[in-house]
């Protein structure tokens, strides 16, 4: 803390500034992140480069330490909040410059379940990684998911459940997708504290993601595979 006032972001070169922004995201410092984003833009960085190299790069570090049990939900929420500050500046610019989109995801907590902490983290990290995310919120019945798949046409459907009493509902949704012949049109990712890999497979999901960082990696891998298949 002692040298907190000694760091003047505008005096750092690009490389040092990005490194400092990694620190500031890690520490959840929103104003510092906003300032860093503005400085990089002023220096002629494209919005897409600021997003990927500074923000996504920084959130990758946060995600890795979350996965490894070094950071926990409060720290990640703070980091995500800081990232959101930077994103708010970049979003309109990204829309103008037509930056590439990695993919699109519809996500929601299943019926009967109110828990959205993990789901929100996934949303934020996915956005941070360049995905477009449509968040359906909590307590989603199967009809709600299907409607969103039809209107949003995402690459990925993400479902979350924190309770043993609600996790089987994911299977209800997947079974309905199978019945309607649309299961294979989407990548289905599931997550939540009581789940595990075997459970994810057994209910017919493409993958179980143990945390938000894993969700981002898994989503990227599946979307890349899907694109390769389409181009083959």
């Amino acid at each position: 803390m002692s040298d907190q006032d000694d760091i003047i972001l505008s005096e750092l070169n690009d490389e040092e500034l990005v490194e400092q922004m990694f620190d500031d995201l890690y520490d959840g410092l929103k104003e510092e992140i906003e300032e860093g984003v503005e400085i990089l833009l002023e220096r002629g960085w494209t919005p897409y480069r600021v997003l990927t190299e500074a923000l996504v790069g920084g959130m990758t570090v946060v995600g890795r330490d979350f996965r490894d049990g070094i950071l926990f939900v409060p720290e990640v929420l703070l980091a995500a909040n800081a990232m959101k500050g930077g994103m708010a500046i970049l979003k309109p610019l990204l829309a103008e410059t037509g930056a590439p989109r990695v993919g699109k995801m519809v996500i929601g907590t299943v019926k009967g379940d109110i828990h959205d902490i993990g789901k929100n983290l996934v949303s934020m990290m996915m956005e941070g990684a360049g995905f477009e995310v449509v968040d359906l919120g909590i307590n989603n019945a199967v009809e709600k998911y299907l409607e969103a798949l039809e209107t949003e046409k995402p690459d990925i459907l993400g479902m979350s459940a924190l309770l043993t009493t609600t996790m089987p509902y994911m299977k209800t949704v997947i079974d309905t997708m199978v019945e309607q012949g649309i299961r294979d049109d989407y990548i289905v990712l599931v997550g939540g504290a009581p789940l595990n890999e075997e459970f994810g497979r057994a209910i017919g999901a493409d993958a179980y993601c143990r945390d938000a960082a894993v969700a981002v990696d898994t989503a990227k891998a599946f979307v890349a595979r899907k694109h390769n298949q389409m181009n083959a």
Partner: protein
Amino acid sequence: MVRDMTNALSRLLETRDWLMADGATGTNLFNMGLSSGDAPEMWNVEHPEKIKALYAGAVDAGSDLFLTNSFGGNASRLKLHGAEGRVRELNRIAAELGREVADAAGRPVIVAGSVGPTGEIMAPMGSLTHELAVEMFHEQAEGLKEGGADVLWVETISAVEEYKAAAEAAKLAGMAWCGTMSFDTAGRTMMGITSADLAKVIDKLDHPPLAFGANCGVGAADLLRTVLGFAATGSQTPIIAKGNAGIPKYHDGHIHYDGTPSLMGDYAVLARDCGATIIGGCCGTTPEHLRAMKEALETRPRGDRPTLDEIASKLGGFSSASDGTDGDGPERRKSRRRG
């Protein structure tokens, strides 16, 4: 701490050096036909005979204490089902049904009023204020008290703020309480709380719990590592162990936890050796598991405090190398501002 001897659980704890709690609520209700996504609490009114059968399942298997079907019975959770106006009623009935079953047992059986988390993140990180959380828990506590619960049983909490709000609600309701957290993330709660942290928290509360501990989480082995963490603090408050019967698997359209009754028998005895006084199961723990646990607790001698290796060899390995209490965990990134 001066123990309030007017309470049935305090009296039982004075005469016994271990008590067996119950097993699962949610997963056992599934086996009785509850649909995923529906509110278990509605069954207190719609299927009271099934709820009594759930309670009786634990009592008949030898439980000294069971939890009421009110885990999601706070306004925040019931709102999902349009039942936020029925908090008092659903909790009262959950406890009344429990009272009936406990009083017919022919031996002292404690009715513990289950109070689960609100599902919201508390301020300043989230939007739920301390005052509002206390109010919600208090409303639920009054219902459980009215229905005759002996104690409040706060469970599956992940944030210290929420644990404290529940403590305050118990005080407002004039009820004794017990409180457990769920240590499901690298040996800590989702919010990063270690076993040692929780032990410290309860020592500072002005309405401390009669017993504290861990429930749910990952598997039986992880839960016992957490109990060892509580015991290592030297806390004088009785410790609760309520672990899952293994991990969930999906078979033929329903969830099945892979821990056998014999494994849960081993778990129960190990839990006692680790320093737990109130021992039960959580998700996946059926009456059959409870019978095996009771028999093991009654017939096997106490042993020395087990090592982590001994726990792992009997119950399986741990979900993470460290639980944050041994100083061996991975470290935070150093940053220039923080130093």
